[in-house]
């Protein structure tokens, strides 16, 4: 299965990069997809030998359980031009206006795919957010942050605590003072 995917990467992006998680499991990703990560791009520029069968050791925070999700995101978002150079898709209004209707549809599909992609439990979402931060994958970082923010949108403080399993560490006096300062009796107008 993994070999098939890496084979597809060979055809599409030309070359693949190998990654090894802290538990020893190896993954292959097309170069164009890996270039979505600023950290990997900088590493690639500094150590070109990675291109020739080198393996990138991933930090211990990036588990083999979450890395396939990162690979899935990067592979989906990576686009390669005629010369084989990676071009990162930017979902800006100006770019969308300049492009054709088919490109607009692609952008819309990608946005919908992103929404579905981050539709997951709290634990993997946190792991994904941390990986996006460590590898500096801007698009993934944005959608994961947005997802956590959306999970908390319109919720009361107690509901926020329940969603994220946070303990109320205020003293009774502090709690009372905070409630007096924050009379959240109105619904969220936004």
């Amino acid at each position: 299965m993994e070999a098939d995917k890496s084979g597809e990467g060979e055809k599409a992006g030309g070359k693949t990069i190998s990654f090894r998680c802290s538990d020893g499991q190896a993954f292959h990703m097309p170069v164009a997809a890996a270039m979505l990560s600023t950290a990997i791009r900088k590493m690639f520029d500094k150590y070109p030998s990675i291109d020739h069968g080198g393996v990138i050791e991933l930090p211990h925070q990036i588990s083999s359980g979450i890395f396939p999700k990162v690979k899935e995101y990067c592979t989906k978002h990576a686009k390669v031009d005629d010369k084989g150079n990676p071009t990162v898709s930017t979902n800006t209004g100006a770019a969308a206006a300049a492009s054709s209707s088919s490109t607009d549809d692609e952008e819309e599909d990608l946005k919908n795919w992103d929404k579905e992609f981050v539709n997951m439990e709290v634990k993997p979402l946190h792991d994904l957010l941390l990986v996006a931060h460590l590898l500096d994958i801007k698009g993934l970082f944005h959608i994961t942050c947005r997802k956590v923010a959306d999970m908390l949108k319109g919720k009361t403080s107690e509901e926020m605590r329940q969603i994220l399993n946070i303990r109320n560490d205020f003293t009774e006096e502090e709690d009372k003072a905070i409630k007096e300062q924050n009379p959240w009796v109105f619904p969220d107008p936004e």
Partner: protein
Amino acid sequence: MASSDVSVDVRPEFNSFDHLRSIRYIATDRPWLTLYGIRVQPVTPFSSLSSRPDLALIHQCLPDELLFEIFARMSPYSLGRAACVCRKWKYTVRNPTLWRNACLKTWQRTGMEANYQMVQSLYDSSWRKMWMLRPRIQFDGISSRRILS
């Protein structure tokens, strides 16, 4: 610091090292030795008062700057509620950048320069105070002032 000279008695098996008999060592007081074995608990401003570990995934997994990034994508009303969740969140939500962005977004028609002048002259350079005190139109058409933590 008081210091006393101590002569060292060399054991018989070290007779070959006769010169050691005459060496005199200076023994100084070493008060830091009393600290060994004592574990000093670091003071963490946002930690719980109780000794129970923090089970929250968001605190275990994510550094503070990521928490800020999440808050940056929340509405000011949600931020106000988030400030009531726990101490760590309360202090993170007080970051002026969050409130500056909220103010500039809410009163963008006023213009950035005018907003900066207003916050300095009327609200003691506090964006949070500006958000709390400056009247704004809600979607239901009522001018409201909302008090945040």
